[in-house]
């Protein structure tokens, strides 16, 4: 199986090739989460900005942005498009003057009060910018209750950048961040509303800046990023704020899933006198009677790898022509079933078919 999140995370810590893991996790997360838009974050020297008052700092912030002519595809771009842009986009980051974004930190801190490390909120103000170039937003730390609508708002208003570029970019940033990063600076956050595997951590004003607390904070941010992922996975969890409640929901979900598995296995056991799930016989002539379209759409692609493995047959080496076999079988269903296309690329349906011939073939095999 493809590397999962665990190996990806581990590989992050071991400093592997950035882009590969970015792409892998890209693809993994694409399944689970909807695509969100995020501006890039770049390394910078913003110590120069420290002495400036806020307004000037923000001006400085935005002026380099206007020069950048980087246009990034919108979230609707398919994956391969993203990959290309990803590669071309990365070099443009490195020379730009912006600071490492840490909006995630603030957001998380706002949301999960337990994990919030700061005694005070960084004083940054949010300036929505709608340039198609790199967006760096300096966002004020809202109250806990405001953070959610705020972030969702900003999400929606924010145009371009591909979040996945962000992720790999942030991994690079992560490696750069050391204990020696500038301390005693306000946290500048950029528009970033998705779940990162890690976040660039900066010491907040007046906070402890020794290595232990930095590590602690980094760890906490990692945890918050993962919690966000979990929130998206579990239905109905994204609206909840607060770690304890989210954990509650997750626990309920896991328990319900486990209970469902128990029930279903009981059901399966009761249905069969012996445990033989003869998949082909299930679907062959009965296909006309299968009204549950969801079921059929899901099962038909599942069926394909099954054919060689059917246990009740002596001949395992039956290399059936899947296309020819299943096209007529399922051809009776309308091609307009959109959910079928979901399971997709394996299946090409043919409305014209000689269903009887093939179902007879099936029966012979049974």
């Amino acid at each position, binding site marked *: *199986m*493809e590397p*999962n*999140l*665990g*190996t990806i995370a581990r590989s992050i810590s071991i400093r592997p090739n950035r882009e590969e893991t970015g792409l*892998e996790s890209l*693809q*993994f997360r694409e*399944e*689970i989460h909807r695509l969100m838009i995020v501006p890039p974050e770049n390394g910078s020297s913003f110590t120069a900005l420290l002495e400036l008052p806020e307004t000037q700092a923000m001006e400085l912030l935005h002026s380099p942005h206007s020069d950048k002519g980087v246009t990034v595809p919108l979230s609707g771009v398919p994956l391969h498009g993203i990959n290309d842009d990803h590669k071309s986009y990365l070099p443009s980051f490195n020379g730009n003057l912006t600071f490492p974004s840490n909006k995630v930190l603030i957001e998380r801190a706002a949301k999960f*009060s*337990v994990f919030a490390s700061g*005694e005070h909120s960084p004083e940054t103000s949010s300036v929505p910018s709608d340039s198609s170039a790199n967006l760096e937003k300096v966002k004020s730390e809202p109250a806990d209750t405001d953070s959610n609508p705020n972030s969702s708002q900003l999400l929606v208003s924010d145009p371009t950048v591909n979040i996945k570029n962000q992720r790999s970019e942030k991994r690079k940033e992560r490696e750069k961040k050391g204990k020696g990063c500038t301390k005693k600076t306000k946290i500048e956050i950029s528009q970033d509303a998705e779940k990162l595997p890690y976040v660039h951590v900066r010491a907040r004003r007046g906070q*402890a800046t020794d290595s*232990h*607390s930095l590590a602690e904070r980094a760890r906490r941010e*990692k945890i918050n990023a*993962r*919690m966000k992922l*979990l929130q998206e*996975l*579990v239905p109905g969890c994204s609206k909840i704020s607060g*770690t*304890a409640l989210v*954990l509650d929901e*997750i*626990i309920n979900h*896991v*328990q319900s*899933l486990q209970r*469902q*598995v128990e029930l*279903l*296995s*009981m*059901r*399966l*056991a009761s*249905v*069969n006198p*012996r*445990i*033989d*799930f003869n998949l082909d*016989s*299930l*679907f062959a002539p*009965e296909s006309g*009677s299968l009204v*549950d379209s969801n*079921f059929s759409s*899901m099962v038909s692609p*599942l069926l*394909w*790898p*099954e054919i060689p493995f059917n*246990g009740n047959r002596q001949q395992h080496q039956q290399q059936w022509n899947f296309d020819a076999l299943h096209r007529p079988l399922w051809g009776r269903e309308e091609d307009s079933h959109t959910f079928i296309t*979901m*399971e997709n690329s394996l299946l090409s349906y043919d409305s014209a078919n000689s269903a009887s011939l093939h179902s007879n073939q099936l029966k012979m095999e049974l």
Partner: protein
Amino acid sequence: MRSPSSLKQEFLKRWMRGLQRCTSSSKKDMNILERKKVIKLSADLAMASARNGKTSWSRALIANASRDNDNRILAERILGPESDILIKRVSTSVGTVSCNRKIRSKKILKRSCNSVRRVRKGTHLPHQKVLAKSIAKRLVQKRTQILKRLVPGGEFMDELSLIEETLDYITYLQAQVDVMRCIASATELKNRNND
């Protein structure tokens, strides 16, 4: 890339294979409970072997299955010819669990030092805030304990890996439920049509 559909396909494949191997060897009829057990076990092991020992919960599942003797034979049969390799790999990784425990205790020590330091600095907070924070922290800790019990093999992990494991485990459970539901409704439908 672990797309849900390929996950389900893989799971179904292994599950059916495991079931075949199991039923082909046992001649007698099993009662419903045994059947349920076999079905569930083979499903679990199918998924766990599909992960190939990359995630902790899969290893824990396999380890648990092979631990009790009566299940062990069944499990080995279900896993098939590659079972020895798999079980060996699992047992070696179980050894790392004890290492994780050592690491974890060290982390606990470190964390307690940090909290002591932080308490000193944080004394200027108003009392309500401190109280609320500690309550929230306790709640979260309780929840994590429960979650650790739920996810197989989760007791010895730190929070970060626990969350990752939960992510993986949830996707696996979802896939399993979907596939089993499909098969169940299909067989029921078929039986109804045959009668």
